[in-house]
Each structure stands twice: as structure tokens, then as C-alpha cells.
């Protein structure tokens, strides 16, 4: 028996991941040892510190292009860019999660397991301090996402998937109001997520089988081996196609692409809004980061085979998202369907196999993330005595009551609709241009047509806010605390700056748009 050789670890390159996972563990200890009244502040500071120092490490590592941990982690341009994106967006999400002044006790309950609607539950909804475990949970999730976008083999990717998914399931169940909806959301997300993980794992097994038997190579699920196998494996192509399909299902589920999107509206609606924002921005970056890596690095040789199928998924996703968004009456569900449609646009970018396509997709992820967190930040502020007022009819005349926040939300909606001078327009251009360049005109036309449909629900909200008279039911906007204000300002400024002067970020994305294999 040969001696087990330990792989060498490049600690500097892995530092962002290690910092976050370490901070999450420290966070668990804080729960045990720090007195209750100090916990929230300590936990928030710890989480922010971890995210920011990880971000610093990402920036310091910016020029790294290497494989480490026995080829399991790739620290290359896309990984670093997407890790940076996740960390910045996660900072904003943490600010929203940490907000305590908008609602007494914060957006989370102390005990998720208390029976919904029971007297105990009502008591804890009435302003008892929320749980502070949300911070370590969120930190674990962020750490998992960082591994997910850098994973260089399918097993590491699977572990990362679980590391960031499990905390998210829990976070979904912690909404302070509408407990039943929140628990249902968590349950749905968990069950469907578990299925999709199983699909993913089964796909890994099939791909492993496919890679066996290439002369001069051992079977494996690292991307270099898969890439070689796609070129000349003696095994049946059926294994490859079935494996690819199962892997794609697992990833498209996280990306909220149709027909694997059905969880999205329910979970977005039921989850505490700060967590929804976190999922809409960071999970999307992570999922598409993994999709890009799997399809551009491992399966690039089979692009002729997967492009038509993924293209059909993209068109379906855009259609489902746009058409169903029209019928929504709840702002969180509307944003959920909009996020589904955006997943469709992002898939168009994934299918443009050029450097421009890769950088365009990464640009889109960042731009969309900023806007969507800002949008959910506004949703947390529009509230009445029973918590957030998410039904659209309640937003009527908001422009009269709170012109400032209505104006901000209008700007974000215009960005979603792709009006120029917002990041929504530049990011659409960044994706459609390479797709057209790659002769995928049908995807661009589908994208343009669905954009037209999608403009209608956005516009309806604008009409609601500005052109309708305020009724008695129009809620007021709570003056946000410093944390929410900070997140909102970052999101709106980024939406504007990336729309007016996108060149610096485009340069950055261009410089990063090359995978190592």
C-alpha cells in the first residue's frame, strides 16, 4: 500500500475561505459564551469583519492563477472576481440582516421550532429579541459559496453546495412575521434542494464512470480529467449526456431556472426579506459561477451538445419569469419571478462561449446583485402595524407619502426594465452582444421579447406608487436605520454608476475572464 500523500495547501490563496469558515465557528462559540445583550453587536461585528478581511485577501490575491489543495480549488480570474462579488454583496446583505431599528428585535424570531400561531409564537413575534445564530449561519453560507465558485472538481463542488445550502434552509424559516409562510418556505426549499442535490450527486457518479478507461489517466471528477474524457473517452456518450443533464439540474435549481424554478416565489415570499435579498444576489452569483465553470471548463468540448438544450432552458426561463411576473400581486413574488427571468438572461451569457461572454455574465451578476439587494431593502421599509406590507395594492400612492423611497424604488425598477443609464441596460448589453456575436440570435430575440413583457409588471408598480391616489391602507415607510441606509445607498449608487460608467468594472471582468484548468 502506497503512502498517503498530503496535498500542499496554498494558505494565502485559500485565506478568504478559511477566514469565513473560521469566523463562523467562532460565531458559534460566541453564542455560547457572550452574554445575550451583547451578542447581536458582537456577532454582527464579527461577521462583517470576517467578510471584509476575506475581501481584502481576495483583492491581495487578485493576480493569482493557480490550482491548490490537490487540484480541488482553482484560484483563477473568474473565481476571484466572483468571490469578490459574493463578499461585497454579502456585506450589504449582512447590513440588512443586522438591522434592528426598523422592527423591534429585528427581522428574525428567536425560536423557529415553536408552533406557528400558538400563544408562545405570538409572544415571540411581539418584539422578543431575535436569534443571533443567523450571523454564523450566514457566514457559513458565504464561506460555502466562496468554495462553490472556486471548486475545481465535482466532489468539492458538491460539498460546497451543501455547505451553503443547509444554512440557507434554516435562515428561510426564521421570519418574525407570517411564521407559517416562513416555515413552509423553508420546508419546500429544503425538500426540493435535497432532491436537486441528489440529482447532482448522481450526475457526479455517472461522469466518474464516463471518465474511466482513458489510456494513461485515472478516472476522476476533476475538471481536467472530465475535459480530457469529453475529448476521447471510450465510454458511452450516453453516460456523458445523462451525467451532464443531472449536474445541470442540480445547478439550475440553485440558479432558479425553469422548469426547476417552482420553489423560488414561495421561498422568496416566505423567507425573511433580508435573507431573500441575500439569496437573490449571492446565491445567484454562486450558482452561475459554478455553471460557468462546469460548462466552460469541464464540458467545453461538448458545447455543441449542451448549447441547444441549455438554450431552450434559457428561453423557457425567460418566458416563465416574464409572463408569470405580469400576474403577481405581491411585491416579493414579483421580484422572485423577475429574478427567474434574470436567470434566463444570465444563461444567455453562459451560452456565449467567448471571453466577452464570460466577462459579460460576471458583469451582469454583479450589477443585478446590487440592484436586487437594494430592491429588497426598500421592501423591508414599506410596512404597517403587521410588518411588511407586500401586497401591491398597499403600495398605491406611496410616491405621495414617501417620495424619496418611491423614487429610489422607481429607479431600481427602471434598472430592472433595462432603461439606459442604469446598470440594467449595460448588463443586458454585456450579455446580448457576445451572444449575438456567437450566432445565438434566437436567444437575443427571446431576451428582447421577454424584456418587453417584463417591463409591464415593473411599470405597474411605478404606476401604483406615483399615479394612484394614496388610500387609507397605504402603509408608511419606516425611516431606515443606519445599516439599511448604508445597504440601500451602496445598491442604488452601484446601479447608477455601473449604468453611467461601466468601463472600470468591465475592464476588471475582462481581465479576470480566463479559467485555469
Amino acid at each position, binding site marked *: 500500500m502506497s503512502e498517503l500523500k498530503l496535498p500542499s495547501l496554498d494558505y494565502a490563496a485559500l485565506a478568504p475561505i478559511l477566514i469565513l469558515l473560521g469566523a463562523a465557528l467562532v460565531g458559534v462559540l460566541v453564542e455560547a459564551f457572550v452574554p445575550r445583550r451583547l451578542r447581536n453587536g458582537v456577532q454582527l461585528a464579527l461577521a462583517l469583519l470576517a467578510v471584509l478581511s476575506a475581501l481584502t485577501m481576495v483583492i491581495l490575491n487578485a493576480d493569482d492563477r493557480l490550482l491548490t489543495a490537490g487540484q480541488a480549488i482553482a484560484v483563477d480570474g473568474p473565481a476571484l472576481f466572483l468571490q469578490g462579488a459574493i463578499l461585497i454583496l454579502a456585506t450589504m446583505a449582512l447590513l440588512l440582516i443586522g438591522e434592528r431599528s426598523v422592527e423591534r428585535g429585528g427581522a428574525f424570531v428567536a425560536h423557529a421550532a415553536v408552533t406557528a400561531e400558538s400563544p408562545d409564537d405570538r409572544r415571540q413575534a411581539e418584539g422578543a429579541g431575535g436569534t443571533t445564530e443567523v450571523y454564523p449561519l450566514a457566514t457559513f453560507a458565504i464561506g460555502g459559496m466562496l468554495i462553490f465558485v472556486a471548486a475545481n472538481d465535482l466532489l468539492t463542488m458538491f460539498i460546497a453546495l451543501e455547505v451553503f445550502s443547509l444554512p440557507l434552509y434554516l435562515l428561510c424559516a426564521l421570519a418574525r412575521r407570517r411564521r407559517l409562510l416562513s416555515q413552509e418556505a423553508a420546508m419546500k426549499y429544503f425538500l426540493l434542494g435535497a432532491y436537486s442535490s441528489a440529482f447532482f450527486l448522481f450526475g457526479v457518479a455517472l461522469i466518474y464512470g464516463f471518465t474511466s478507461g482513458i489510456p494513461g489517466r485515472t478516472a476522476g471528477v476533476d475538471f481536467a480529467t472530465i475535459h480530457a474524457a469529453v475529448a476521447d473517452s471510450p465510454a458511452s456518450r450516453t453516460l456523458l449526456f445523462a451525467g451532464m443533464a443531472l449536474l445541470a439540474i442540480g445547478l439550475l435549481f440553485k440558479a432558479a431556472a425553469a422548469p426547476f424554478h417552482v420553489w423560488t416565489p414561495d421561498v422568496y415570499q416566505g423567507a425573511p426579506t433580508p435573507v431573500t435579498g441575500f439569496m437573490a444576489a449571492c446565491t445567484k452569483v454562486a450558482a452561475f459561477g459554478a455553471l460557468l465553470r462546469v460548462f466552460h471548463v469541464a464540458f467545453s468540448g461538448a458545447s455543441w451538445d449542451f448549447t441547444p438544450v441549455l438554450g431552450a432552458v434559457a428561453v423557457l426561463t425567460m418566458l416563465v419569469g416574464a409572463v408569470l411576473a405580469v400576474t403577481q400581486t405581491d411585491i416579493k413574488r414579483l421580484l422572485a419571478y423577475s429574478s427567474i427571468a434574470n436567470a434566463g438572461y444570465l444563461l444567455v451569457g453562459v451560452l456565449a462561449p467567448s471571453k466577452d461572454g464570460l466577462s459579460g455574465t460576471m458583469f451582469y451578476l454583479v450589477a443585478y446583485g446590487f440592484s436586487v439587494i437594494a430592491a429588497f431593502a426598500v421592501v423591508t421599509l414599506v410596512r404597517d402595524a403587521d410588518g411588511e406590507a407586500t401586497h401591491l395594492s398597499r403600495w398605491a400612492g406611496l410616491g405621495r407619502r414617501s417620495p424619496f423611497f418611491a423614487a429610489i424604488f422607481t429607479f431600481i425598477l427602471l434598472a430592472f426594465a*433595462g432603461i*439606459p*443609464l442604469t446598470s440594467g441596460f449595460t448588463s443586458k448589453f454585456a450579455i*446580448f452582444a457576445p451572444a449575438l456575436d456567437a450566432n445565438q440570435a434566437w436567444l437575443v430575440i427571446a431576451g428582447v421579447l421577454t424584456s418587453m413583457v417584463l*417591463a409591464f409588471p415593473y411599470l405597474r408598480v411605478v404606476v401604483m406608487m*406615483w399615479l394612484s391616489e394614496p388610500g387609507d391602507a397605504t402603509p408608511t415607510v419606516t425611516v431606515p436605520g443606519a445599516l439599511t441606509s448604508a445597504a440601500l445607498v451602496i445598491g442604488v449608487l452601484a446601479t447608477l454608476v455601473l449604468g453611467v460608467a461601466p*468601463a472600470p468594472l468591465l475592464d476588471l471582468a475582462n481581465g479576470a475572464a480566463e479559467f485555469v484548468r
Partner: protein
Amino acid sequence: MSNFPFLSVLTVAPLVGALVVALLPRRRPDLAKLVAFGWSLLVLVLSVIMWIAFQADGDRFQFRESYAWIPNWGVNFTFEVDGIALVMLMLIAILVPLVILASWHDAEQSKRSVPVYFALLLVLECTMIGVFAAADVFLFYVFFEVMLVPMYFLIGSYGGHQRQYAAVKFFLYSLVGGLFMLAAVIGLWVVGGKTFDWQALSQAEFATDTARWLFLGFFLAFAIKAPFFPFHTWLPDAGGAAPAGAAALLVGVLDKVGTFGILRYCLPLFPEASRWFAPWALALGVIGIIYAALLAVGQNDLKRLVSYTSIAHFGFIGVGIFAFTTQAGTGAVLYMLNHGLATGLLFLVVGMLIARRGSALISDFGGAGKLVPLLAGVLFFAGLASLALPGTAPFVSEFLVLIGTFTTNKPVAVIATLGIILAAAYVLWMIQRTTQGTLNPTLTEVDGMRRDLTLREKIVVAPLIALIVLLGFYPKPVTDVINPAVKATMQDVGRTDPAPAVGTVQEAAK
């Protein structure tokens, strides 16, 4: 002098003005109005200086400026104007101060912020100037789309009956057209060598099929914007619901972006496709002339009526463009200017009448001339200008379009001429039912109807009337500027004027 960055300053100045006006305290509406008016006069003065600095016999494009914007995509802030764009810039610069003056009390009625109304008007001016001054396709698209936002809020927040419906319809129609154009813009970028510069793109050669698809993308956007039949249904709603001042800008200038876009982008960039699609475009134009005129005859709402007359006039402009002769082309461009003046005046006067009566329905008037003789007179003049009476500016342009078309396409010219008769019908009938005849007794009970034109309103209508008469008798200063640009455009399309069959017809046009 020509080194002065006229176009970027002209584009940015109204935006700065809008910021200043928007930041003024809400309790000081009069200050906001004065600042907005002063600012628009400043823009006018600058435009006049630019008009003087423009050399009519010089290069086709002048005042070129270019600054890098998004180098990754080859996008630049490139501005330059030819004679066509220059004329449109002048129209904007003239109309905006008059509209501000005419809307002096409009915003108060809506219970909404008065400074914001005037700030929106200035933002609109910025985007309108930008869209005509841009020489970078991406920049043009940006202005084309952003222009919707201020107009949307002007209609939606400050409009009359059914304003929500009208505002949303306006926005969605334009956005749909804009998104088709976006696809075409991206396509143009991909096949045109990853540049957005108009000069470079106009030299590029495209495959026939590609060019036809791209033409279609652009043309759809412009046909919706203009609007041509059958994409016109948003205009009567928007024009009917918008406050009179905004409606004057909407029909007078905003819609010209469509016809201007066809002249600047469709024809020179895709000459073969333009020739191929010309019969269809001509058909749309002719149908528009007749159909919209017939609908105008049947309208009972003054603002909707004026909107329908505009659709008929846009039919004339479309015919003039796609006839592919210099005469018809010059006539079309001149029509764009004259229509802006005449219909702008008509909208403003109708707005004054509606503000007095508190109703836009023709049936609520009758014999109003006896109460407000001066206003009725101005309405009559505006109506006559709108039906292109000889001696008013629109006559020159309509006549040029018709004879220019006659030389290449007789049936179209003959059918289009019928439009003149219908124009007389809808204008004169409208005048007769509102200001002539026996006095409607209820009118005397309305306080507003006892006030004839105020000094402010006289100042609004006087320059427009003067220009319409002046250009009706002496259009040469304008045609001198337009002619070289139209000639160059027709050369781009590859059409030369047919030799005159009868010399006297040509003479009459001069």
C-alpha cells in the same frame, strides 16, 4: 467660434437647469418657473449662436465632438449635426421656452409639485437635444430610451382624464419599439466591426439579408415613435391626456425623432434595404394620411383631434422621405419643422381654450369667438396653418413633398393630395363647432371664458405666428441649411432625382 463645444453644452445645460429647478423649495413655485424659463432662454440664445456659426455650404456634419465613454464596447460621446438635426435643435430651443411660458399655471391644477413639473420639462429638453445631436448609435439609443422617462411622468402625474392609462400605453409602446431597436443596435455593432460611430458604420457594407433585418429593427422603433399607421394608437391617448404644453412637445418634437431616425439611421446605413422596403413604407404613409384624417373628422375631443391630425401629417413626412427625391426629402424635413411650429401652436391654443372652459369636448363649446375673439382668431390661424394654407409655412413643405413624390410615384402623390381636402374638413369643422355659430349659453356662465388672451399668452403665440408666416413666404434660410443634408442622404440611398419632365413644375417649387 466653431471650436466651442456647442452640442455637449447644449445637451448638458438643460440638465443642470433641471437640477437647479428641482432643488428649489416647493413653496416658491414662481421662482422655479422663472428659473426654468430663464434657463430655456439661455439654451435658445446658445442655439441661435450655433445656427449662425453653422456653415450651410460647409461640411455635411459640423461641430463634431467626441469623448471616450465605454472603451470596451467602442462607445463614445460623439456629437455632430447636419442641417436636418440643426433645424430640429432650433425647433426644440424655440418651443421649450414657449411651452414653459404657456404651462405657467398648468402644474398648480394637478396638486403636485410645481418645480418638479418644470424640472421634468428641462430634463426632456436635455434628452431631446441629445437624441438629435448624437452621432454615436449607442448614445442615440440611450437618449432615445431615457427620453421616455420624463415624458412618462409629465403625462402620468400632470395629465388630465385617463392619464395613467395613457402614460403606461405611451411608455410600453415606445419601449417595445426601443427594444426591437436594441436588438438591431447590437446586431449592427456585431456586423459593423464593433463600433458605434455613425461615420464608420455608414461606410460599412452589410450582407443583404442582415441589412434588411437590421433596417426592420430600426424602422419598427421609429415607426412606433413617429407614429405611422398602424402603430399610432398610443398617440391620441397620450396627446389627449398630456397637459397641453407637454403635448405640444410630444407631438411637435418627440415624435420627430422617429422620422429623423429614419433619415439619419435607416436610409444611410441600410440603403439597399431602404429601397427594398420603400413601397411598404409609402403605403403606410398614404394609409396614415387618409385614415387618420378621417378619424380626426369624427373626434369630439380637441386634443385627440389635434393628435390625429398629426398622425396624418406624419404620413406626409413618411411619404416625403421614402419618395427618394431631394425635393420631397427637403419638403419632409421642412415639414418636420413646420409641423412642430403649427401643431405646437395649435396644441398650445387649444390648451388655453380648454383651460378656460374646463373641458376638452368640442360639444361643450360653440360660438366661443364671441366671448374670446382674439383667442378664437389665433385658433383659426393655427388651424389654417395646420391645413397648409398657402402663405403659411406648412404649405411650402406639403407642396414640396407632393411634387417631389409626383415625379417618382404618381399614384401615391395623387392619393396623398386627397389628404389636403380632408385636412380642410377636420380643421374648418372643428373651428366652426367651437368658435363660430350661435353662442352656447352655458359658456357665458364659465368665468374663464370671459378672459381673452392675457399678455403672457400673447407672448407665447406671437413668435410662433411670426415664424409660420415668415417661413411661409421666405423659407430660403431654412431650406439652404436642409438641402445639402438631404442631398447627401439621398446620395447615400443611391437615388438621384429624375430629370424634370416639365420645367415649370420645378420652378414653382422654388
